[in-house]
């Protein structure tokens, strides 16, 4: 039995070695490898420390939250904090479920609009040779150089004029035109959708709209999956918004901030809420990771 396993392991390592023959032997020293593993291990621990602590705290019964000196890990795990969280959802002034609904609604609608609009624009810029497309793409690149802080104040005027202050529109519609998505999509379309295929479809008389949906979009699946995760995690994590006053329109992340900052009395419930909050984008990323990496490989900025 044991020899079987060691045999298998040996074969596995040989295979691995074979794959990396050149890189192992010439430029990689064993000492360097070990050093890198150690650094990665230590920093990875620091990176996940708050997440692990949030999960541990969310499982702690009340007496363990109050213990001194503070204890990092949980001894007698319980799901009470989660049930408390869901009970709290029922009977707070603004029902907690409302915050969750807001976050889900904003994230889903905002992401959908953003993916559709930026994919359309990216396709046109990458594959239809209309005059002015290079200029427009340069504008997009410049727009990556500043963030929404700059436009926030004057957008308040725009929002007032449109009558959108204190409505969902104020959060959702600006999210439709996030430029990083368009940038990534355009770069990916340029390299992975072949012009020859598009040309032949055009010769057969297919409309650009049809080509976009039937040919281009299926070919850039990794890119729109990437747009979904970026747009979704951004919106999902959106907190207080300067255009929103009503408590009923505020987001889950905002509500968590209130719970967490209300002190140690709610520490357990707060941690449970944070766990619920982080699980969603992390799960989405786990599912989509390979697509995201594939998209990012074309993301570079050529001069």
């Amino acid at each position, binding site marked *: 039995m044991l020899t079987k396993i060691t045999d298998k392991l040996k074969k596995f390592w040989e295979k691995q070695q074979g794959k990396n023959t050149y890189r192992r032997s010439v430029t990689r020293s064993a000492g360097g490898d070990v050093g890198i593993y150690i650094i990665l291990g230590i920093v990875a621990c620091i990176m996940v420390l708050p997440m692990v602590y949030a999960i541990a705290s969310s499982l702690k019964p009340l007496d363990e939250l109050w213990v001194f000196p503070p204890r990092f890990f949980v001894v007698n795990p319980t799901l009470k904090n989660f049930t408390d969280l869901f009970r709290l959802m029922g009977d707070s002034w603004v029902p907690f479920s409302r915050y969750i609904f807001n976050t889900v609604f904003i994230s889903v609608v905002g992401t959908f609009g953003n993916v559709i609009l930026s994919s359309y624009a990216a396709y046109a810029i990458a594959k239809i040779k209309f005059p002015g497309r290079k200029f427009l793409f340069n504008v997009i690149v410049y727009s990556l150089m500043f963030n929404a802080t700059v436009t926030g*104040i004057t957008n308040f005027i725009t929002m007032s004029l449109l009558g959108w202050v204190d409505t969902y529109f104020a959060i959702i519609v600006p999210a439709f035109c996030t430029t990083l998505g368009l940038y990534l999509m355009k770069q990916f379309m340029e390299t992975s959708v072949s012009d020859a295929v598009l040309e032949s479809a055009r010769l057969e008389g297919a409309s650009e709209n049809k080509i976009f949906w039937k040919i281009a979009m299926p070919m850039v699946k990794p890119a729109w999956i990437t747009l979904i995760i970026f747009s979704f995690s951004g919106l999902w994590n959106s907190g207080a918004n300067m255009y929103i006053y009503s408590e009923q329109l505020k987001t889950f992340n905002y509500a968590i901030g209130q719970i967490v900052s209300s002190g140690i009395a709610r520490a357990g419930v707060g941690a449970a809420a944070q766990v619920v909050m982080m699980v969603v984008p992390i799960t989405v990323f786990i599912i989509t990771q390979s697509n995201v990496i594939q998209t990012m490989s074309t993301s570079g900025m050529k001069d």
Partner: protein
Amino acid sequence: MPREKAIIRTDISKFKWTLIEMKKNWVGYAMILPFFLLFFIFTVIPVVLSVILSFTTFNLLEWPQFIAMDNYIRLFLDDDIFLLAIKNTLIFAAITGPGSYLLSLFFAWFINELRPKIRAIVTLLFYAPSISGSIYLIWQIFFSSDQYGFVNAWGIKLNLIAKPILWFQDEKYIFGLIIAVALWTSLGTSFLAFIAGFQVVNMELYEAGAVDGVKNRWQELWFITLPSMRPQMMLGAILAITASFGFGGIIDALVGFPSPEYCAHTIMHHLGDYGGMRFEMGYASAIATLLFFMMIGANLLVTKILRKVGS
């Protein structure tokens, strides 16, 4: 396009040629219209408007009054807190910008040495903080000033400190701590771009490099990997610089607004103070305009330098 141009332009003017091309490809304009219409309304107009409003005094109720450079004069000569905000913003950006860039680059490089399955897991561990919402508030608990703070508790236990330190209230520590937390959340999109960039470097280049006498991984990184990753590095730089000006939300959440003695007051906070609370829109617009040019300027400067380094 240039080839077509050469043929056609002998017959008709450039203007006419453009018109014909526009007509032929009208679908393109229809497809970009929804996005660019919204982009124009929510990004272009606000920038232009804030430049215009920065020369006025405007309270949202009365029509703006033109006051020439008065807002800018007031900012630089009469507003000590703004000068502090500029200083803090620049120091903050100068540390978190390059810091997050180098962290993303080096950890992506280290992670690239791992086998694919482990690589995916470690990538997730490093990327998770940037998509985990308000998890960074946990650092507040670790550095909590009461006896439940881990750092104080362990510090006292190990005799490193004599009494609890008020980490997030003491000016001495606030700045360092928020930079650390900002860096912790900063392995985001550019990090993923680097992870991907390392994976698509042409393997033959490495082999050729080994023949040409590349001896260790550092030489390989410097002579082969980085030059072929230049496009990713440009994008990463832009994203890192832009993000480095935008950590105000983290500061608010960790130390509150205003921060003690304004020690972590940034331009973003000043902007929110005048625009969002006092409704001095003209003055706020002047701040926004300056911030805009600072961000664009920093980005253009750095990308220009990066281009030089690469060639």
